């Protein structure tokens, strides 16, 4: 329990002014604009949008600037901002098969209809620091283009589905529960788990995925397909009654393929794990897909032996804003609690000393 304290207003004001000064840094260096962050740190922006759970690159860039580049603080700012806005309903479910592809790869098939397209990727870079970027002055990029259109890119897992070797995606059109409006009950349905994972902390999900793949779980899948690109968002405004396009947004999707040894009712087949993130956050989409599948253990009749397969363990600890809030609350005054514990330790010491003294006397 923490207690209310008064005072310190001036110190707090001065601390905030000091923070602003430190955020600005050396004034001999040009100030960073929000547009620069949005354009030149786009992967940081994508992470803030995904975990902040609001698609708005400019706001995410502003939050990063305000937070001095601290992703968790920026995500908190975006989450706080969203609570000030009214909700204009729900979009139509996105048609990601109609994505304008900017990257599309598969770890399961070498040759695919539509081909494998790398797009802008850090894969295959040598991870050597590029000192040209440290030098002043812009480096020209010479870009090759290819005017032949991309072939249609059907979903890779549908190739397996044609043979009946993979479970079909569930096809219920029920209204999915929205965890921003309703609390989560366990066991949670798949739509709820997915919503939770998509806005979950990337580091936490990455480590859980790693643990799950190393043996603390039973999830060592194949990356069936990873695709990034732009997708149209449509919604049906109440005053129109028909769907309209409101934007194209950048998304990354991942479908993982896992083994499934079959059960009494199901033959041996492949199963799916699905992940998605705003922007070009492929690591996040992959970890969501890994954990989405790991958390299906119970419904697939697999043994739940590890925390990575435990819905309540995973889903109640994914949120970086909640996690950060709970850890940070230790900074609040716990003076009364601590005083009582201090008193208790002193009393126990005193009692032990007195007892030991009596024992010594008795032994004499």
């Amino acid at each position, binding site marked *: 329990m923490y207690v209310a304290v008064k005072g310190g207003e001036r110190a707090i004001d001065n601390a905030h002014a000091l923070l602003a000064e430190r955020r600005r840094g050396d004034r001999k260096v040009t100030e960073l604009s929000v547009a620069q962050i949005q354009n030149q740190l786009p992967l940081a922006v994508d992470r803030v949008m995904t975990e902040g759970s609001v*698609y708005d690159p400019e706001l995410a860039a502003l939050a990063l600037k305000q937070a001095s580049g601290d992703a968790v603080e920026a995500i908190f700012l975006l989450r706080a901002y969203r609570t000030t806005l009214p909700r204009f309903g729900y979009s139509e479910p996105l048609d990601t098969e109609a994505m304008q592809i900017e990257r599309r790869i598969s770890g399961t098939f070498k040759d695919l209809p539509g081909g494998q397209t790398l797009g802008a990727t850090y894969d295959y870079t040598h991870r050597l620091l590029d000192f040209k970027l440290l030098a002043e002055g812009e480096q020209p990029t010479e870009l090759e*283009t290819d005017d032949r259109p991309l072939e249609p890119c059907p979903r890779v897992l549908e190739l397996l589905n044609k043979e009946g070797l993979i479970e079909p995606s569930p096809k219920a059109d029920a209204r999915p529960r929205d*965890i921003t409006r309703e609390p989560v009950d366990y066991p949670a349905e798949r739509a709820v788990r997915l919503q939770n994972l998509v806005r979950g902390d990337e580091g936490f999900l990455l480590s859980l995925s790693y643990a799950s793949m190393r043996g603390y779980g039973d999830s060592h899948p194949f990356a069936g397909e990873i695709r990034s690109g732009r997708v149209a968002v449509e919604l049906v405004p109440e005053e129109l009654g028909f769907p309209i396009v*409101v934007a*194209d947004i950048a998304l990354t999707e991942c479908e993982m393929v896992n083994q499934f040894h079959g059960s009494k009712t199901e033959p041996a087949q492949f199963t799916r794990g699905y992940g998605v993130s705003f922007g070009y956050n492929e690591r996040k989409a992959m970890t969501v897909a890994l954990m989405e599948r790991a958390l299906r253990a119970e419904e697939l009749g697999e043994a739940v032996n590890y925390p990575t397969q435990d819905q309540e363990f995973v889903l109640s600890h994914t949120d970086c804003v909640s996690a950060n809030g709970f850890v940070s609350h230790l900074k609040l005054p716990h003076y009364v609690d601590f005083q009582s514990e201090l008193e208790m330790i002193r009393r126990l010491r005193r009692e032990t000393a007195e007892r030991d003294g009596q024992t010594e006397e008795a032994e004499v």
Partner: protein
Amino acid sequence: MMSASTEQVANTPRQQWMAVLARADASQLEARWQALALQPEYQFIRQPEIGLTMIRGRVGGSGSPFNMGEMTLTRCALRLAGGTLGVAYIAGRDKQHALTAALADALLQEATQHDRLQAELIAPLAAEHQKNCVEREAKTRATQVQFFTMVRGEDE
């Protein structure tokens, strides 16, 4: 032609121009709108207002719907003096973009203005969008690979 175009939903003419107005770069839309020098009389049904919509995806891309995350959205509805209703829902927080799009939507429904707006506003903005898509696709296409698998030692 685009192979992976995002155009398939916009089927009625009104849906098509609304998509073009929503996707347009706000400054380009404004410049073209100002160049038309139209000053229609209108009343707001809904002042430009910023809010959120929850984006829904599908499990596995094609399965049951789920809530993916929200996006910012600005909407506006107005009525021209003649009674025509103009509506705009635009991603982001640009109230002027929503207002201009709603005005254009209303005027595009009026026979007197339709052809001019279609030719001088919608067609160039649609062409610009298409040009961006084609450029992006050409850059992407240049990164398409042919992988060759190597025979591993133990397979010999």
